Protein backbone atom coordinates (compact mmCIF):
# COMPACT_ATOMS: atom_id res chain seq x y z
CA UNK A 1 0.00 0.00 0.00
CA UNK A 2 2.80 2.34 1.03
CA UNK A 3 4.65 1.56 -2.18
CA UNK A 4 1.59 2.34 -4.25
CA UNK A 5 1.25 5.71 -2.55
CA UNK A 6 4.91 6.50 -3.30
CA UNK A 7 4.40 5.47 -6.93
CA UNK A 8 1.29 7.60 -7.22
CA UNK A 9 3.05 10.63 -5.68
CA UNK A 10 6.01 10.26 -8.05
CA UNK A 11 3.72 9.87 -11.06
CA UNK A 12 1.86 12.98 -10.02
CA UNK A 13 5.15 14.86 -9.58
CA UNK A 14 6.22 13.80 -13.08
CA UNK A 15 2.93 14.83 -14.65
CA UNK A 16 2.85 18.20 -12.90
CA UNK A 17 6.58 18.73 -13.61
CA UNK A 18 6.12 17.86 -17.29
CA UNK A 19 3.21 20.26 -17.52
CA UNK A 20 5.26 23.00 -15.85
CA UNK A 21 8.21 22.23 -18.14
CA UNK A 22 6.01 22.56 -21.23
CA UNK A 23 4.73 25.90 -19.94
CA UNK A 24 8.29 27.07 -19.13
CA UNK A 25 9.50 26.05 -22.58
CA UNK A 26 6.61 27.85 -24.25
CA UNK A 27 7.29 30.96 -22.22
CA UNK A 28 11.02 30.68 -22.95
CA UNK A 29 10.42 30.33 -26.66
CA UNK A 30 8.81 33.79 -26.85
CA UNK A 31 11.50 35.42 -24.71
CA UNK A 32 14.28 33.57 -26.54
CA UNK A 33 12.99 34.70 -29.90
CA UNK A 34 13.20 38.35 -28.82
CA UNK A 35 16.52 37.75 -27.06
CA UNK A 36 18.05 36.06 -30.12
CA UNK A 37 16.79 38.83 -32.41
CA UNK A 38 18.46 41.47 -30.26
CA UNK A 39 21.67 39.46 -29.84
CA UNK A 40 21.85 39.06 -33.62
CA UNK A 41 21.56 42.83 -33.89
CA UNK A 42 24.06 43.98 -31.27
CA UNK A 43 25.81 40.89 -29.92
CA UNK A 44 25.90 39.73 -26.32
CA UNK A 45 28.31 41.62 -24.15
CA UNK A 46 28.88 39.50 -21.07
CA UNK A 47 30.49 41.50 -18.27
CA UNK A 48 32.53 39.03 -16.28
CA UNK A 49 34.79 41.53 -14.49
CA UNK A 50 33.40 45.08 -14.15
CA UNK A 51 36.91 46.48 -13.65
CA UNK A 52 38.05 45.49 -17.14
CA UNK A 53 37.30 46.47 -20.74
CA UNK A 54 34.87 44.18 -22.52
CA UNK A 55 34.48 44.27 -26.29
CA UNK A 56 32.23 42.49 -28.74
CA UNK A 57 31.85 43.09 -32.49
CA UNK A 58 28.53 44.00 -34.06
CA UNK A 59 27.67 42.48 -37.40
CA UNK A 60 27.22 45.25 -39.99
CA UNK A 61 26.83 43.11 -43.12
CA UNK A 62 28.64 45.76 -45.10
CA UNK A 63 32.21 45.84 -46.41
CA UNK A 64 34.42 48.53 -44.89
CA UNK A 65 32.00 48.99 -41.99
CA UNK A 66 33.03 47.87 -38.50
CA UNK A 67 31.29 48.34 -35.17
CA UNK A 68 31.80 47.20 -31.60
CA UNK A 69 30.05 47.36 -28.27
CA UNK A 70 32.58 48.39 -25.67
CA UNK A 71 32.14 48.31 -21.91
CA UNK A 72 34.35 50.72 -19.97
CA UNK A 73 34.82 50.57 -16.19
CA UNK A 74 34.04 53.66 -14.17
CA UNK A 75 36.46 56.43 -13.30
CA UNK A 76 38.83 56.02 -16.25
CA UNK A 77 40.09 58.77 -18.50
CA UNK A 78 39.70 57.19 -21.91
CA UNK A 79 41.75 58.35 -24.85
CA UNK A 80 40.67 57.49 -28.39
CA UNK A 81 42.95 57.80 -31.34
CA UNK A 82 42.47 57.21 -35.06
CA UNK A 83 45.14 57.41 -37.75
CA UNK A 84 43.78 57.62 -41.27
CA UNK A 85 46.28 57.98 -44.13
CA UNK A 86 48.44 60.92 -43.10
CA UNK A 87 45.81 62.49 -40.85
CA UNK A 88 43.93 61.48 -37.80
CA UNK A 89 41.80 62.44 -34.88
CA UNK A 90 41.83 61.95 -31.15
CA UNK A 91 39.56 62.62 -28.22
CA UNK A 92 39.41 61.97 -24.51
CA UNK A 93 36.69 61.59 -21.97
CA UNK A 94 36.29 60.42 -18.42
CA UNK A 95 33.82 57.70 -17.64
CA UNK A 96 31.97 58.50 -14.43
CA UNK A 97 29.74 55.48 -14.18
CA UNK A 98 30.61 52.20 -15.85
CA UNK A 99 29.29 52.66 -19.34
CA UNK A 100 28.81 50.96 -22.61
CA UNK A 101 29.40 52.64 -25.95
CA UNK A 102 29.19 51.83 -29.61
CA UNK A 103 32.42 52.32 -31.52
CA UNK A 104 32.16 52.49 -35.27
CA UNK A 105 34.42 52.92 -38.28
CA UNK A 106 32.78 53.14 -41.67
CA UNK A 107 34.31 53.88 -45.05
CA UNK A 108 32.59 55.50 -47.99
CA UNK A 109 33.81 56.09 -51.49
CA UNK A 110 32.40 59.38 -52.70
CA UNK A 111 33.50 60.56 -56.13
CA UNK A 112 37.30 60.52 -55.94
CA UNK A 113 37.42 60.54 -52.18
CA UNK A 114 37.88 57.83 -49.57
CA UNK A 115 36.01 58.94 -46.47
CA UNK A 116 35.87 57.43 -43.04
CA UNK A 117 33.42 58.10 -40.23
CA UNK A 118 34.70 57.18 -36.80
CA UNK A 119 32.34 57.22 -33.85
CA UNK A 120 33.60 56.54 -30.39
CA UNK A 121 31.12 56.99 -27.61
CA UNK A 122 29.48 60.38 -27.87
CA UNK A 123 32.13 61.88 -30.15
CA UNK A 124 32.60 61.36 -33.85
CA UNK A 125 34.76 62.58 -36.70
CA UNK A 126 34.76 62.28 -40.45
CA UNK A 127 38.01 62.27 -42.41
CA UNK A 128 38.67 62.12 -46.10
CA UNK A 129 41.48 61.40 -48.54
CA UNK A 130 41.03 62.47 -52.13
CA UNK A 131 42.76 60.18 -54.58
CA UNK A 132 40.75 58.68 -57.40
CA UNK A 133 43.23 55.90 -58.17
CA UNK A 134 43.56 54.82 -54.59
CA UNK A 135 39.83 54.98 -53.99
CA UNK A 136 39.33 52.68 -56.96
CA UNK A 137 42.16 50.42 -55.81
CA UNK A 138 40.49 49.95 -52.42
CA UNK A 139 37.10 49.21 -53.93
CA UNK A 140 38.63 46.69 -56.34
CA UNK A 141 40.47 44.87 -53.56
CA UNK A 142 37.98 45.25 -50.70
CA UNK A 143 38.01 41.53 -49.92
CA UNK A 144 41.79 41.28 -49.90
CA UNK A 145 42.59 43.84 -47.22
CA UNK A 146 44.01 42.47 -43.97
CA UNK A 147 41.47 43.36 -41.32
CA UNK A 148 42.72 43.26 -37.77
CA UNK A 149 39.52 43.76 -35.86
CA UNK A 150 39.28 43.38 -32.13
CA UNK A 151 36.97 40.78 -30.69
CA UNK A 152 36.53 38.66 -33.77
CA UNK A 153 35.02 35.94 -31.66
CA UNK A 154 32.62 36.69 -28.81
CA UNK A 155 33.19 38.97 -25.85
CA UNK A 156 36.84 39.69 -25.13
CA UNK A 157 38.08 41.05 -21.83
CA UNK A 158 41.10 43.33 -21.44
CA UNK A 159 42.96 44.85 -18.53
CA UNK A 160 42.72 48.62 -18.37
CA UNK A 161 46.51 49.00 -18.69
CA UNK A 162 46.29 47.83 -22.30
CA UNK A 163 45.84 49.93 -25.45
CA UNK A 164 43.09 48.27 -27.48
CA UNK A 165 43.44 48.29 -31.22
CA UNK A 166 39.86 48.14 -32.38
CA UNK A 167 40.64 48.24 -36.08
CA UNK A 168 43.76 48.00 -38.18
CA UNK A 169 43.29 47.78 -41.91
CA UNK A 170 46.42 46.84 -43.86
CA UNK A 171 47.34 46.25 -47.47
CA UNK A 172 48.53 42.68 -48.12
CA UNK A 173 52.08 42.05 -49.31
CA UNK A 174 51.08 41.06 -52.86
CA UNK A 175 49.23 44.36 -53.36
CA UNK A 176 51.87 46.65 -51.87
CA UNK A 177 53.39 47.70 -55.23
CA UNK A 178 50.01 48.39 -56.79
CA UNK A 179 48.90 50.30 -53.71
CA UNK A 180 52.12 52.33 -53.61
CA UNK A 181 51.51 53.33 -57.22
CA UNK A 182 47.88 54.24 -56.58
CA UNK A 183 48.71 56.02 -53.34
CA UNK A 184 51.50 57.88 -55.14
CA UNK A 185 53.97 56.90 -52.44
CA UNK A 186 57.42 57.29 -53.87
CA UNK A 187 59.69 55.23 -51.69
CA UNK A 188 62.84 53.72 -53.18
CA UNK A 189 63.22 51.44 -50.17
CA UNK A 190 59.70 50.19 -50.78
CA UNK A 191 58.87 50.03 -47.10
CA UNK A 192 55.60 48.43 -46.15
CA UNK A 193 52.80 50.95 -46.39
CA UNK A 194 51.30 52.05 -43.09
CA UNK A 195 47.83 50.82 -42.13
CA UNK A 196 45.00 52.60 -43.94
CA UNK A 197 43.33 53.08 -40.61
CA UNK A 198 44.35 52.41 -37.05
CA UNK A 199 41.75 52.97 -34.34
CA UNK A 200 42.81 52.58 -30.75
CA UNK A 201 41.47 53.29 -27.29
CA UNK A 202 42.84 53.07 -23.78
CA UNK A 203 43.71 55.11 -20.75
CA UNK A 204 46.18 57.99 -21.05
CA UNK A 205 48.60 55.94 -18.91
CA UNK A 206 48.30 52.93 -21.19
CA UNK A 207 49.07 55.05 -24.27
CA UNK A 208 52.06 56.63 -22.48
CA UNK A 209 53.36 53.20 -21.44
CA UNK A 210 52.92 51.85 -24.98
CA UNK A 211 54.81 54.83 -26.40
CA UNK A 212 57.62 54.36 -23.88
CA UNK A 213 57.86 50.68 -24.73
CA UNK A 214 58.03 51.49 -28.43
CA UNK A 215 60.87 53.95 -27.88
CA UNK A 216 62.95 51.48 -25.90
Amino acid at each position, binding site marked *: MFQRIITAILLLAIIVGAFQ*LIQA*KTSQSEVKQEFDR*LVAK*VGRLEITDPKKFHVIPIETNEPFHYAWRVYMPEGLSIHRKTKFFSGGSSSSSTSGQPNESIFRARF*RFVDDEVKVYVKSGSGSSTMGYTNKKFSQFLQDHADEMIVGSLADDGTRVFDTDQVLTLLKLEIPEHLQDEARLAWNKRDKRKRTLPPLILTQMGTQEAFAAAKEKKNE
Partner: protein
Amino acid sequence: MSDPFSNNEEAVPAKSSSPKLLQFSVLTIMLLTAAVGVWVAQIQTAEQTELMRLEIPNLQKAARELIIVDPNQYTAVQHHMTWNDDFRWRIYLPEGHRYQLAFATEKIDSNNLVEPFDTQVVEPGEYELELQYKREKDDSFRIAVLLDEKVIFEQLHPAGWNDNSGSSGASNISDSVQRDVDAPLEIMRTRFHTRDEKGNSSSAQGPVNGILIWLDTVDE
Protein backbone atom coordinates in the same frame (compact mmCIF):
# COMPACT_ATOMS: atom_id res chain seq x y z
CA MET B 1 7.51 -25.32 18.89
CA SER B 2 8.88 -25.46 15.40
CA ASP B 3 11.90 -27.42 14.35
CA PRO B 4 14.58 -25.13 12.97
CA PHE B 5 16.10 -27.96 10.94
CA SER B 6 12.92 -29.08 9.27
CA ASN B 7 12.19 -28.43 5.52
CA ASN B 8 9.14 -26.36 6.22
CA GLU B 9 8.65 -24.05 3.15
CA GLU B 10 7.09 -21.36 5.31
CA ALA B 11 10.51 -20.85 6.89
CA VAL B 12 11.96 -19.24 3.73
CA PRO B 13 9.70 -16.27 2.99
CA ALA B 14 12.68 -14.05 1.94
CA LYS B 15 13.05 -15.83 -1.39
CA SER B 16 9.56 -14.94 -2.48
CA SER B 17 9.46 -11.33 -1.15
CA SER B 18 12.96 -10.18 -2.31
CA PRO B 19 12.22 -9.92 -6.09
CA LYS B 20 9.02 -7.98 -5.39
CA LEU B 21 10.94 -5.47 -3.29
CA LEU B 22 13.62 -5.18 -6.01
CA GLN B 23 11.00 -4.64 -8.74
CA PHE B 24 9.37 -1.98 -6.67
CA SER B 25 12.72 -0.30 -5.92
CA VAL B 26 13.71 -0.14 -9.57
CA LEU B 27 10.34 1.32 -10.50
CA THR B 28 10.55 3.81 -7.66
CA ILE B 29 14.08 4.82 -8.61
CA MET B 30 13.05 5.24 -12.24
CA LEU B 31 10.06 7.35 -11.29
CA LEU B 32 12.13 9.35 -8.85
CA THR B 33 14.80 9.95 -11.49
CA ALA B 34 12.15 11.04 -13.99
CA ALA B 35 10.52 13.35 -11.44
CA VAL B 36 13.84 14.94 -10.45
CA GLY B 37 14.83 15.23 -14.12
CA VAL B 38 11.62 16.93 -15.19
CA TRP B 39 11.67 19.37 -12.25
CA VAL B 40 15.37 20.21 -12.69
CA ALA B 41 14.71 20.86 -16.38
CA GLN B 42 11.75 23.04 -15.46
CA ILE B 43 13.77 25.06 -12.92
CA GLN B 44 16.71 25.46 -15.32
CA THR B 45 14.41 26.57 -18.14
CA ALA B 46 12.72 29.11 -15.87
CA GLU B 47 16.13 30.42 -14.71
CA GLN B 48 17.42 30.73 -18.28
CA THR B 49 14.24 32.55 -19.30
CA GLU B 50 14.56 34.95 -16.38
CA LEU B 51 18.21 35.68 -17.24
CA MET B 52 17.24 36.43 -20.85
CA ARG B 53 14.31 38.54 -19.68
CA LEU B 54 16.62 40.57 -17.44
CA GLU B 55 19.12 41.11 -20.24
CA ILE B 56 16.55 42.20 -22.84
CA PRO B 57 16.25 45.85 -21.62
CA ASN B 58 20.05 46.27 -21.94
CA LEU B 59 20.00 44.73 -25.38
CA GLN B 60 17.08 46.95 -26.42
CA LYS B 61 19.04 49.97 -25.21
CA ALA B 62 22.16 48.87 -27.06
CA ALA B 63 20.10 48.25 -30.19
CA ARG B 64 18.36 51.62 -29.75
CA GLU B 65 14.87 50.17 -29.89
CA LEU B 66 11.70 51.83 -28.68
CA ILE B 67 10.97 50.96 -25.07
CA ILE B 68 7.33 51.75 -24.39
CA VAL B 69 6.64 51.50 -20.67
CA ASP B 70 3.70 53.92 -20.56
CA PRO B 71 1.64 53.62 -23.77
CA ASN B 72 0.06 57.03 -23.09
CA GLN B 73 3.31 58.94 -23.60
CA TYR B 74 5.37 59.93 -26.60
CA THR B 75 8.21 57.47 -27.08
CA ALA B 76 11.16 58.15 -29.35
CA VAL B 77 14.61 56.75 -29.95
CA GLN B 78 17.36 57.74 -32.33
CA HIS B 79 18.83 54.91 -34.37
CA HIS B 80 22.57 54.53 -34.15
CA MET B 81 24.29 57.01 -36.43
CA THR B 82 26.35 55.31 -39.10
CA TRP B 83 27.51 58.57 -40.65
CA ASN B 84 27.71 62.19 -39.53
CA ASP B 85 24.52 63.12 -41.41
CA ASP B 86 22.58 59.99 -40.51
CA PHE B 87 19.57 61.16 -38.50
CA ARG B 88 16.88 58.51 -38.11
CA TRP B 89 14.40 58.02 -35.30
CA ARG B 90 11.67 55.59 -34.34
CA ILE B 91 8.69 57.39 -32.82
CA TYR B 92 5.56 56.20 -31.09
CA LEU B 93 2.48 58.43 -30.84
CA PRO B 94 -0.12 57.26 -28.32
CA GLU B 95 -3.81 56.81 -29.03
CA GLY B 96 -6.25 59.53 -27.96
CA HIS B 97 -4.80 62.46 -29.92
CA ARG B 98 -3.88 63.58 -33.37
CA TYR B 99 -0.42 64.98 -33.85
CA GLN B 100 1.51 67.27 -36.10
CA LEU B 101 5.10 67.05 -37.09
CA ALA B 102 6.63 70.48 -37.60
CA PHE B 103 9.78 71.52 -39.41
CA ALA B 104 11.68 74.80 -39.48
CA THR B 105 15.04 75.84 -40.88
CA GLU B 106 15.23 79.56 -40.05
CA LYS B 107 15.02 81.89 -37.05
CA ILE B 108 15.87 79.13 -34.62
CA ASP B 109 16.84 80.23 -31.13
CA SER B 110 18.18 78.21 -28.24
CA ASN B 111 14.94 77.20 -26.54
CA ASN B 112 11.69 78.21 -28.19
CA LEU B 113 9.62 76.76 -30.94
CA VAL B 114 9.26 78.93 -34.03
CA GLU B 115 6.92 79.47 -36.94
CA PRO B 116 7.29 76.22 -38.89
CA PHE B 117 8.18 76.06 -42.54
CA ASP B 118 5.68 73.23 -42.85
CA THR B 119 3.62 70.83 -40.76
CA GLN B 120 2.14 67.41 -41.32
CA VAL B 121 -0.72 65.81 -39.40
CA VAL B 122 0.18 62.33 -38.15
CA GLU B 123 -2.16 59.72 -36.66
CA PRO B 124 -1.26 57.67 -33.58
CA GLY B 125 1.10 54.78 -34.21
CA GLU B 126 4.74 53.91 -34.73
CA TYR B 127 6.78 55.56 -37.46
CA GLU B 128 10.27 55.81 -38.87
CA LEU B 129 11.37 59.42 -39.12
CA GLU B 130 14.40 60.50 -41.10
CA LEU B 131 16.15 63.75 -41.83
CA GLN B 132 18.13 63.96 -45.05
CA TYR B 133 20.53 66.81 -45.24
CA LYS B 134 22.65 67.17 -48.32
CA ARG B 135 25.07 69.79 -49.58
CA GLU B 136 24.81 69.93 -53.37
CA LYS B 137 27.74 70.51 -55.71
CA ASP B 138 26.85 74.20 -56.04
CA ASP B 139 26.98 74.46 -52.20
CA SER B 140 23.22 74.82 -51.94
CA PHE B 141 21.37 72.53 -49.51
CA ARG B 142 18.52 70.10 -49.86
CA ILE B 143 16.78 69.23 -46.64
CA ALA B 144 14.11 66.57 -46.56
CA VAL B 145 12.13 64.90 -43.81
CA LEU B 146 10.76 61.43 -44.44
CA LEU B 147 8.06 59.60 -42.53
CA ASP B 148 8.03 55.87 -43.20
CA GLU B 149 10.26 56.53 -46.22
CA LYS B 150 7.86 59.09 -47.76
CA VAL B 151 9.08 62.66 -48.15
CA ILE B 152 6.77 64.91 -46.13
CA PHE B 153 8.89 68.08 -46.07
CA GLU B 154 11.43 69.27 -48.55
CA GLN B 155 13.22 72.58 -48.65
CA LEU B 156 16.04 73.97 -50.75
CA HIS B 157 18.37 76.63 -49.45
CA PRO B 158 21.08 78.63 -51.20
CA ALA B 159 24.72 78.27 -50.22
CA GLY B 160 24.64 81.06 -47.64
CA TRP B 161 22.07 79.28 -45.51
CA ASN B 162 24.88 77.33 -43.85
CA ASP B 163 28.30 78.91 -44.33
CA ASN B 164 30.05 75.89 -42.82
CA SER B 165 31.08 77.71 -39.64
CA GLY B 166 30.01 74.84 -37.44
CA SER B 167 26.86 74.18 -35.49
CA SER B 168 25.63 73.42 -32.02
CA GLY B 169 23.01 70.93 -30.95
CA ALA B 170 21.66 68.01 -32.92
CA SER B 171 19.21 65.27 -32.09
CA ASN B 172 17.54 65.85 -28.73
CA ILE B 173 16.91 62.15 -28.48
CA SER B 174 19.37 59.30 -28.33
CA ASP B 175 18.32 56.39 -26.08
CA SER B 176 14.62 55.60 -25.92
CA VAL B 177 12.74 58.31 -24.02
CA GLN B 178 9.14 58.82 -22.96
CA ARG B 179 7.54 62.25 -22.64
CA ASP B 180 4.12 63.48 -21.69
CA VAL B 181 1.96 64.48 -24.68
CA ASP B 182 0.98 67.71 -22.88
CA ALA B 183 4.18 69.38 -24.07
CA PRO B 184 5.74 69.37 -27.55
CA LEU B 185 8.43 66.77 -28.14
CA GLU B 186 11.54 68.21 -29.70
CA ILE B 187 13.22 65.71 -31.97
CA MET B 188 16.07 67.83 -33.25
CA ARG B 189 17.42 71.34 -32.78
CA THR B 190 20.63 72.33 -34.50
CA ARG B 191 21.76 75.94 -34.85
CA PHE B 192 24.42 77.05 -37.28
CA HIS B 193 27.25 79.20 -36.01
CA THR B 194 27.84 82.60 -37.49
CA ARG B 195 31.07 84.43 -38.30
CA ASP B 196 31.95 87.88 -37.09
CA GLU B 197 33.74 90.52 -39.20
CA LYS B 198 37.11 88.99 -38.24
CA GLY B 199 35.95 85.61 -39.53
CA ASN B 200 35.69 83.99 -36.10
CA SER B 201 32.93 81.46 -35.77
CA SER B 202 30.70 81.36 -32.73
CA SER B 203 27.25 80.36 -31.54
CA ALA B 204 24.93 83.36 -31.86
CA GLN B 205 22.57 84.33 -29.05
CA GLY B 206 19.59 85.21 -31.23
CA PRO B 207 17.68 83.32 -33.91
CA VAL B 208 19.83 81.76 -36.63
CA ASN B 209 19.50 79.27 -39.44
CA GLY B 210 19.42 75.63 -38.49
CA ILE B 211 17.05 72.70 -38.32
CA LEU B 212 14.24 72.22 -35.84
CA ILE B 213 11.86 69.26 -35.88
CA TRP B 214 9.20 68.72 -33.25
CA LEU B 215 5.96 66.93 -32.50
CA ASP B 216 2.87 68.37 -30.90
CA THR B 217 -0.77 67.45 -30.45
CA VAL B 218 -3.32 69.03 -32.77
CA ASP B 219 -6.18 70.91 -31.15
CA GLU B 220 -9.52 69.39 -32.16
